[in-house]
């Protein structure tokens, strides 16, 4: 059994749910973590999990909200402060859930969570595998989260060949959403 930690917000929600659509039931329980300012995402997750429960009887999932680490176009200095705050917030949550696998696809929300997981790994508490999937929108350049997590994730997946060339450590599987 693998505890999966899924991080997303807004437009990324549809993408992450597509990524999850073919996963076997061994990826359970699923813990969804998303920015607290996001309403529609919660509804989409619940509906996804409801459909899943129709096929798999033992479906387990939880939903957790964390403060958004950065608003679109937020300034650098205030971003650092809000991100630190988000890390402090997500550390106890990550410690409680102790995921084996973290799956994220791009929103700023995933950076503090991944950093928390890395800290827990460094402290010898729990080592999670971090898998980052860059959004399909990213054809030629990486998102800010991507640029950071390219160095900190275990597996970094891109969906367009240009990015694979620019970032050789990444994994290219074609279009997966």
């Amino acid at each position, binding site marked *: 059994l693998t505890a999966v930690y899924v991080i997303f917000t807004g437009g990324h929600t549809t993408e992450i749910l597509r990524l999850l659509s073919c*996963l076997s039931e061994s990826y359970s329980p699923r813990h969804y973590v998303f920015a607290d300012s996001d309403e529609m995402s919660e509804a989409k997750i619940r509906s996804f999990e409801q459909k899943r429960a129709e096929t798999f009887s033992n479906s387990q999932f939880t939903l957790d909200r964390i403060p958004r680490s950065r608003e679109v176009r937020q300034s650098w200095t205030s971003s650092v402060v809000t991100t630190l705050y988000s890390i402090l917030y997500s550390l106890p949550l990550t410690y409680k859930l102790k995921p084996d696998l973290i799956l994220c696809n791009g929103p700023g929300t995933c950076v503090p969570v991944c950093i928390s997981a890395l800290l827990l790994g460094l402290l010898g508490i729990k080592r999670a595998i971090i*898998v980052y999937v860059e*959004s*399909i929108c990213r054809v030629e350049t990486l998102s800010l989260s991507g640029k950071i997590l390219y160095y900190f994730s*275990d597996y970094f997946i891109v969906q367009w060949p240009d990015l694979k060339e620019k970032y050789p450590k990444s994994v290219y599987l074609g*279009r997966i*959403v």
Partner: protein
Amino acid sequence: FRFKDSLAEDLGRADLVISHAGAGSCLETLEKGKPLIVVTNEKLMNNHQLELAKQLDRDGHVFCCNCSTLVETLQSMDLSTLKPFPPGQPEKFALFLDKVVGFQ
């Protein structure tokens, strides 16, 4: 309307879709097999929306234009030249993840 839970019904009935370059809008429309014209506004948009719109245009799946060239595009377009957009394959992701996690 401002917000609807799903545009699926409206998309199903449309013969042509003219949209901004949001990834969700573009992909959803292309998956329904509807001809799509993407209108970009380089001043307002985040760069990454533009990247996807341009790539889709290069690959022949959509017609890309901006607000000022929209009328011209509508007049001169040939929808039959648009190529179908193959669906993404999340199964590949599942297979990859199974290997990574050791489920094989």
